[in-house]
């Protein structure tokens, strides 16, 4: 039967999101909010997240181009980004957001730059994996 291999493949993709640490328990909470009335709920929320967070990423990029760094502003941006990332269960992105905020609190500009580069990688990787999963 054709359906079984497709469902099996979907289940494997979903499990790998957890096993590779890209998403956490909060992603399960999103899935539990999905029902017949909102069959694409998770995809819609993730789309909303990537739409809104793109603006925050841009704000942080622009703030990191201005010297000296305004660590308070950077921290405020990342606070918002961390919150929305945690709300969709983006585990690695959330972890990197925490590191960035610690660098802000200690006034470590180089650390902020490094952390932000890593965060963007995790953010892009998650987007790619979730995009493939929803397709």
């Amino acid at each position: 039967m054709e359906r079984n291999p497709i469902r099996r493949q979907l289940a494997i993709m979903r499990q790998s999101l957890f096993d590779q640490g890209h998403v956490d328990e909060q992603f399960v909470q999103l899935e539990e909010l999905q029902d017949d009335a909102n069959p694409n709920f998770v995809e819609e929320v993730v789309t909303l997240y990537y739409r809104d967070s793109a603006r925050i990423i841009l704000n942080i990029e622009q703030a990191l181009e201005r010297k000296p760094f305004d660590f308070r502003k950077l921290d405020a941006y990342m606070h918002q980004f961390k919150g929305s990332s945690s709300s969709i269960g983006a585990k690695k992105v959330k972890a990197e957001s925490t590191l960035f905020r610690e660098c802000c609190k200690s006034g470590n500009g180089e650390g902020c730059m490094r952390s932000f580069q890593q965060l963007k990688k995790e953010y892009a990787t998650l987007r790619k994996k979730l995009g493939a999963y929803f397709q």
Partner: protein
Amino acid sequence: MAPTLPSGDQASDQDNWDNGRLARKRQLLTEIVLRNRLTALVVDGDTTCRVLEQLLLRSYGVQTQGVDNGRDAVALIASGVKFNLIIIDMILPVLNGLEATRQIRDMGVHCKMLGVTACSGESERQAFLAAGVDVFIEKPLDPEHLVPILRELDGQ
């Protein structure tokens, strides 16, 4: 921990037992049928967070309203609208969550306030509690934290 797939085509008895026990524990923590109509205000500057928190509350039958900054939250409360529950973030546009919380409490509002924020430090926790929230929750807001509070508000 996320539910796991059985390896191969057959789950071990231990896997089935562990998954079943976890599912029952989650059921106890997350299921609730409200006897009363509860209302909640969600104050969060981030659209994703605000939408998800409102949807989570609505999934339990709570009627919700959302605002995206502290000033509008204070104005709404000052206009006389009453809520059983206010969920508020710490860092907000226009008027921050700490100050908004203080102003809401200064109006004599005694409803349950949850500070739900991405901040995780002890100093931030103490500051938010000192401002007037009853409970400090690190984001994301989850049923394990929310349901006992809804039960309490519902008088269960």
